[in-house]
Each structure stands twice: as structure tokens, then as C-alpha cells.
């Protein structure tokens, strides 16, 4: 398999976009990426679009051709496919794009992720977002995704003697970085007390433990090293690893609910593919859809022993100048979580960081970046590792 | 011999006190308590209904003894969850008796459960089925502010009736049926209506007293020949007065008189009182059990406890009085919410 590199990225601000439709968001991100790469429509050979809920929130399916159409590429009759993998739809689309170029099937592809949630009522959004859990055996009985996170948090706190305040450090960290990110939905900083006092969602998790409802889109252009060197002087980012793993969809079917076995497996394969170990990673964009997911994932990625993530967050890990910067973008909590766009957005952020274009939230001299996108309550995990090409 | 092979009851745990209802509607609670001899009534939780109560009653019966040849299930109630689609089908599916079984729902106000008993007795006696299930259960509604609101309660009892390993032989049954419009509900109406004082002498007392006397005449018995007696309990006063008039002592009806604490469980009323008696009865005990259903009718049963009750594992399910004691009191607001008396938005 040949090298695959990122040669252009683009992103909308994440947040409530009342004036922008699904198409408008997708096009905005896509065109920005094309502009950033400095290429032309004819150079793009395929589109991979990540989106979870368009069929339910906008009653629009067939997203592949929709994206091709409105980015002006349908005229070229290019292949366009929509990929859905719950909250991991974005990284899943990216994985498909990566394979397409790595295998030699295409040279240059556009990967996008888009989600438009706010066109329907809050009740309908909750219902739609709960499509990621097991509808028959979890949601039917009242187990929303938030309540599953609550079950995980309770068990985690009891098994590892973790304090509630330690879990709250995750959203505090995300907001700290989000306040420095012009693309972020929330620019305010928060304290641990704010998290604890916020409206209860599913005990012990409050509103500030949970990622918001967001609209948004992100896009990336992938191509061969040869093309990249023609198009860019610098700022080429190589995708060193792209790995996917799944697990039982229902939380109850898993052996241990304080662990994402899909993350453990995806990470193992990614580290192997990249020839790296956890200690070699310069920064990580993690899937903090719920604060507890963030802690558990950090451990399952191999950074901390099981049950100790909270302690390390307390000691300052996660900060931009620490040994392991976490969510420099603001993560899902502060930057936002437009489901299908999230995973691609993490890779866009990794690219900004590796190109040293992250402005106020720049991690000092990162060599590589790891992103983790999770679907549902851990039914799928997708890990990417990127590095700067000198 | 035909009789009860196993039995079980279920009473929801929520209760509301007479004082609390009286507070809202401006009545004097002492008047109500003295007039009705009711202190509190049971309230079904928001996730309970006649079907769930029926299933739990039958499951309690099955926990005490596993039935071996159930061929029919009849559920009597005046608050079936569906107007069309029998509760009995849900019960049959939920307790594993479906599909090779006959089933239907009964309605005869508060005596729908005993009507089911008589049907099943006949089917067993004729050899048509080996065992049959008769259930009486209700989550009855009383119109807000009406006298019935103090008594309309929730609960149920299931009997498995057969002719082998019978713990309580039903030696005889006798019934009276008339057209007496004492209490009724028209199709589509939320709440029933009643004839006030007409529900007393021409309805309850005429039917219960006549049926009881005739039952004793048939069996050639007198009140003192019975260990226990249980009558339909729309309130605490009626069955006490009926017992006294017939010549029964208070000590004979005390065990089965559950209405002061849980109210009138309608189709579950007399039979849950009977269940409470079975909880303590011994071989040789004789029970006179008489139901009353508005509309109207009365079913009497002469029951004798057999030695088989000594092998019977009644401790495998909660007794009626311990269910009565496991109570959580709520206020009128929660009561109105649970009983869906509050008009909700879209």
C-alpha cells in the first residue's frame, strides 16, 4: 500500500446554523478544502461523505450524489458514497477514502463529514441520536445514550474509586482549549463546580458532561505523495495509520462496561501500522461525547492505566504544554459534535496542529497526532495517526 | 373434586389516604371514614394496569405451584386496557400458556372474576380442560370528587382451578342474576355513574343476602359452621352489615376484610379477600365466599380446605396482608398524574 497524505482541509464553524442547510454546510467545508489544497474539481476522483442522521432529520438520503451535486462535481460523474457508522461516520468515511488512495484505486479523493440536526425539535433530535444505541433492547426500555454513559460512569467510579470531580476535568479541559478555537461552538471556560452544579442529565452526568447538539461540516483532500509535492511546498501531513474495530452494539453485551474493547483493538492495530507506541504520541483528539468516554478512551488508547485517567488529568495532563495535549480543538464538548462531521473535524484539527496553523491553541512542535472517533457506546472505534512530512 | 389448585394476588404499592382526597374536594375526612369504613386505597403506578396486575397475580400463583394442564384463561375486569383485545391474550402470552389454550375477557362489574371462576369450574368438571385460570383484576376509576373516588382501587387475584391436588375444594356454587341498574358506565364515558342509596338495599344487600342464604340452604349449613366468610367489599360498611344480618361474627370476616386499607379492587375485591383467607387457612376450614357485581348479580361459593394445603408452598409468593403492609403513600397530585386524570398536551 502506498503513502496517503492530506493536502487540503476545510471546516465550517460548529454550532447552531439556522441559516445554513445540510447542503450549504457540506459545500462550505468542501470548497474550503479544495481551496486549501489549491486543486481543481477535475482532480478529485471520488467523494466519501460521512453522515449519520440526514435520513431522519432532513428526510434526505442518497447523500453521496447530493454532495457530488452541490460541490459542483456531479458534472464529472464522480463516484460518491455516503458512509454511516453512528458517531464514527466521519472517521469511517475518512478510512474509506484512505483505503481508496492507499490501494491505488484513486489518486485524489475528497472526504467530508456533515450533520444538520437543528432542523427538527429537541425531542426528535434526542430520538434520532439514540439511533446509535440498540433500539430494541436499550432504547425501548428507556436507555438513551446518555443513560448508558451514566451507567458506565457509575460503574467506573465504583470500580476504580474515581472522584466525580476528576471526571469533570474532561469538559473543563475541552472548554479551556475551545475558548481558543475560532471554529468552536462554545468559547466560554468552565470550572469543575460548574459541571457538578449543572442540570442533571443521567446521574452522575450533567449537561456539562455531555457534548452539545451541533450542525457543521468538515472536509479533507487525500492524495498521493507525488501529487502533494506538486501542489504544496509544505504542510503535507501523512496518514500513518487508519484502523477500525467494532464491538457488540449494546453496552449490556460487553464483558466490561468501563472499557472500550473496540478502542483497544483499533489502537493496537494503529500503533502497529504506524510503528509507534502511546508514549510517542504528541497530541490526541479524543471522542468526549460524554466526559466519561474521554477518560475511558484515554486509558484504552494506552496512555494511562485503567482507572487512572482522572488522576492524570488532575496532575495537568491534557494541557497544551503538557506531555500529552488532549483535545486542543476543544473536543466534542466545546468545539461541538455535528455527528458525521466530528471524526473528519478531528483530523482537520490534527492537520492544523501539525502544520503549526493552530494559532492560539497551537501545541508546541508536535511530531504526530492521534485521533479517536467512537460510535454509539463503543460499538465502533476508529483511530488515525498522522505525522508531518518534512 | 373441583377446586383451587393454586392462587396468587397482586396489590400495587402506592396508597392514598382518605384525608388527602377529602382535602382536595372539601369533604370532612372523619365523615368519610366513619361512613365508608375506608382509611386508604391502593393506586396503580404509571407503568401498571389490569394486564400487569393479572400477570403478576398469576405469576404469584405459579410460583406457589406450577400448573400442569392449563387449558383456559378468563380475565374479569371493568378496566381492561383495551376495549377490544382481551387482557386474557396478553396474560396467556406473558405466562407462557399461549398458544394452545382458549381465552376471553369477562365483564360483570365487580363479579367478573367469580364469573370466570364458575366457567372454569364447569370446564374442569366436564373434563373439557384439566386446569383453568380465573382472574379478577381492576384499576378502577372513580369520578373526581365523587363518593366512589374514595374507594375505587387497584389489585387482582388469580385462581388456577382443577381437579387434582386441590387445596381448597369448591363444593358448590350458586348465583343470582337480575337487571338492576345500580351502577353502570356507558361506552366512551371516562367514569361510571351510580344510583346513590339505590346501590344499597335493592342492589348489594338483596343479591348478597339472598345468595348467601340460598347457598347455606343448599349446603344445609348455618353461619357458625363456617370458619371464615368473605363478601364483596365496596366499602367496609356493606360487608360488615351483610355479615351481621346473616348471623356471622366479626371474627369470621376480619381476615378477609381488606377494603379499609386498600379500597375496593372491584373485580379483585371479594377474591383478594378470599386470597387473604387462604393465606392462613388450615385443613378442614370452611369458607363462605360471596361476590356481588353491579348490574346486577351475586355468586356464592362453599369452599372447604383440604389436607393438600399442608404440602402447598404458599410462602413462595407474598401474602395479601404483607402486600397491604408494603405501602407508599402519595398525594393527590401524584394520584391524579398516575391515574391520568390530568389533561396532557400533544
Amino acid at each position, binding site marked *: 500500500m502506498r503513502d496517503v497524505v492530506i493536502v487540503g482541509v476545510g471546516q465550517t464553524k460548529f454550532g447552531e446554523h439556522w441559516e445554513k442547510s445540510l447542503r450549504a454546510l457540506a459545500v462550505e467545508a468542501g470548497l474550503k478544502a479544495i481551496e486549501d489544497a489549491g486543486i481543481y474539481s477535475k482532480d478529485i476522483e471520488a467523494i466519501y461523505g460521512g453522515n449519520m442522521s440526514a435520513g431522519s432529520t432532513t428526510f434526505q438520503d442518497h447523500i453521496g450524489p447530493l454532495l457530488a451535486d452541490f460541490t459542483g462535481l456531479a458534472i464529472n460523474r464522480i463516484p460518491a458514497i455516503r458512509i454511516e457508522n453512528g458517531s464514527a461516520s466521519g472517521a469511517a468515511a475518512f478510512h474509506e477514502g484512505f483505503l481508496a488512495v492507499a490501494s491505488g484505486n484513486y489518486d485524489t479523493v475528497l472526504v467530508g463529514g456533515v450533520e444538520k440536526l437543528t432542523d427538527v425539535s429537541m425531542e426528535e433530535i434526542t430520538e434520532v441520536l439514540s439511533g446509535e444505541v440498540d433500539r430494541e433492547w436499550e432504547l425501548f*426500555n*428507556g436507555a438513551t445514550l446518555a443513560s448508558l454513559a451514566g451507567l458506565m460512569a457509575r460503574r467506573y467510579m465504583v470500580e476504580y474509586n474515581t472522584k466525580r470531580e476528576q471526571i469533570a476535568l474532561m469538559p473543563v479541559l475541552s472548554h479551556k482549549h475551545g475558548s481558543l478555537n475560532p471554529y468552536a461552538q462554545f468559547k466560554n471556560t468552565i470550572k469543575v463546580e460548574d459541571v457538578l452544579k449543572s442540570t442533571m442529565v443521567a446521574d452522575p452526568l450533567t449537561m456539562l458532561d455531555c457534548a452539545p447538539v451541533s450542525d457543521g461540516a468538515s472536509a479533507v483532500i487525500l492524495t498521493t505523495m507525488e501529487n502533494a509535492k506538486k501542489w504544496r511546498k509544505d504542510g503535507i501531513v501523512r496518514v500513518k495509520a487508519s484502523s477500525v474495530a467494532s464491538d457488540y452494539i449494546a453496552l449490556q453485551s460487553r464483558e466490561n462496561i468501563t472499557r472500550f474493547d473496540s478502542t483497544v483493538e483499533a489502537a493496537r492495530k494503529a500503533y502497529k501500522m504506524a510503528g509507534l507506541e502511546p508514549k510517542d504520541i504528541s497530541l490526541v483528539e479524543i471522542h468526549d461525547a460524554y466526559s466519561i468516554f474521554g477518560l475511558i478512551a484515554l486509558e484504552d488508547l494506552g496512555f494511562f492505566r485503567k482507572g487512572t485517567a482522572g488522576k492524570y488529568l488532575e496532575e495537568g495532563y491534557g494541557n497544551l504544554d503538557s506531555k500529552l495535549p488532549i483535545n486542543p480543538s476543544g473536543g466534542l464538548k466545546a468545539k461541538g459534535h455535528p455527528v458525521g462531521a466530528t471524526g473528519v473535524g478531528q483530523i482537520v484539527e490534527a492537520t492544523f496542529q501539525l502544520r503549526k496553523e493552530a494559532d492560539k491553541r497551537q501545541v508546541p512542535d508536535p511530531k504526530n497526532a492521534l485521533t479517536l472517533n467512537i460510535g454509539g457506546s463503543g460499538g465502533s472505534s476508529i483511530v488515525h495517526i498522522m505525522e508531518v512530512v518534512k | 373434586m373441583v377446586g383451587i389448585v393454586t392462587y396468587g394476588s397482586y396489590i400495587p404499592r402506592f396508597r392514598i389516604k382518605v384525608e388527602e382526597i377529602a382535602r382536595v374536594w372539601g369533604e370532612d375526612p372523619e365523615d368519610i371514614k366513619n361512613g365508608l369504613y375506608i382509611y386508604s386505597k391502593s393506586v396503580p*403506578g404509571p*407503568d401498571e*394496569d389490569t394486564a400487569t396486575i393479572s400477570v403478576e397475580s398469576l405469576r404469584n400463583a405459579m410460583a406457589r405451584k406450577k400448573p400442569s394442564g392449563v387449558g383456559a384463561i378468563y380475565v374479569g375486569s371493568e378496566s381492561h386496557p383495551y376495549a377490544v383485545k382481551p387482557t386474557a391474550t396478553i396474560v396467556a*402470552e406473558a405466562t407462557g400458556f399461549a398458544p394452545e389454550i382458549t381465552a376471553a375477557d369477562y365483564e360483570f362489574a365487580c363479579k367478573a372474576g367469580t364469573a370466570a371462576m364458575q366457567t372454569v369450574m364447569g370446564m374442569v368438571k366436564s373434563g373439557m380442560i384439566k386446569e383453568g385460570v380465573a382472574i379478577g383484576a381492576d384499576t378502577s376509576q372513580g369520578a373526581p370528587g365523587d363518593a366512589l373516588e374514595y374507594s375505587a382501587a387497584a389489585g387482582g387475584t388469580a385462581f388456577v382451578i382443577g381437579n387434582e391436588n386441590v387445596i381448597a375444594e369448591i363444593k358448590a356454587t350458586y348465583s343470582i342474576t337480575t337487571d338492576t341498574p345500580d351502577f353502570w358506565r356507558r361506552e366512551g364515558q371516562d367514569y361510571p355513574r351510580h344510583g346513590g342509596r339505590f346501590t344499597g338495599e335493592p342492589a348489594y344487600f338483596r343479591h348478597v343476602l339472598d345468595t348467601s342464604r340460598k347457598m347455606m340452604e343448599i349446603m344445609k349449613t348455618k353461619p357458625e359452621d363456617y370458619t371464615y366468610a368473605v363478601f364483596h367489599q365496596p366499602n367496609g360498611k356493606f360487608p360488615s352489615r351483610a355479615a351481621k344480618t346473616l348471623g356471622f361474627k366479626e371474627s369470621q370476616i376480619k381476615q378477609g376484610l381488606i377494603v379499609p386499607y386498600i379500597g375496593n379492587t372491584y373485580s379483585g375485591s371479594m377474591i383478594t379477600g378470599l386470597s387473604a383467607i387462604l393465606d392462613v387457612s388450615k385443613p378442614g376450614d370452611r369458607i363462605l365466599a360471596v361476590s356481588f357485581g353491579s348490574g346486577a348479580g351475586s355468586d356464592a361459593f362453599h369452599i372447604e380446605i383440604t389436607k393438600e394445603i399442608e404440602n402447598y408452598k404458599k410462602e413462595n409468593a407474598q401474602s395479601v396482608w404483607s402486600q397491604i403492609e408494603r405501602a407508599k403513600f402519595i398525594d393527590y397530585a401524584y394520584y391524579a398524574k*398516575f391515574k391520568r386524570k390530568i389533561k396532557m398536551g400533544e
Partner: protein
Amino acid sequence: MTIPRFWREFEQRYRLVGTKCPSCERVYFPPRDVCPYCHRESVGKMKKHELKPTGKIYSYTLVRQDIPDFKSIKPYIMVMVEMDDGPKITGQLTDTEYDEVKIGMPVKAVFRRIREESDSGIIEYGYKFVPL
């Protein structure tokens, strides 16, 4: 839930009927057609197995979200129960105060109303848990 979708799961929702792998004897709920451990050896051989309705609480939470189906019981307790027969089941804990709930608490499954389509639609019954 649509009618056929709900109806075909009565055995599971009403009576906790799962499947058991004849090779490794693991019990699964909801039922599986193939055992994840024994694979092809189990295909066509998985047997129906009615779970014992008792178990212990493995984890719990109190849900305060505004879910239209559960408006009348908000907030409701969600539990994951490790059943005596092996599988873990997610369901509501009813008839209990939240401050009484503990990990390890013995519970049993009971038959309750879960939701209804509408005032005129079908009623969907299923399992909830109560303390033993």
C-alpha cells in the same frame, strides 16, 4: 415500535426467552442465532432458554432527560442487571427510591407497561425490575 417489530419479540419482552449455546453453554439475551464463541458449531443448534428472572444490579443511573415516552415517570431509574443465568440486561428499576439503589442489590424482572404508541395505539408491555 411498529406492530410487527414489537409482536415478534413477545417471548423476549414478556418472558425473557433467550438462547443457549449447546457447545459452551453460554446463555444469551436477547437471543442469538450464532454463538460468538463457537460460531459455525452453534449455527442451527442454539436452543431457546427462558432466563430465571432474578439477578443483581451491575450499575445504575437516574435519567432526567425529557423523553416523551417516559414523561409520566420522569425521572426514571435505569439499571443494568447481571442476571443469575449470565447475560446483563438493561431496563428500568421501578417501585424504588433512587437513594435505595446499590450495586449488587438483588432484583427480579416484572411485567409492566413500557410505553404506548398513542392514546389509540397499541400498548407495549415489557420487563422492568423491582428489588427482591
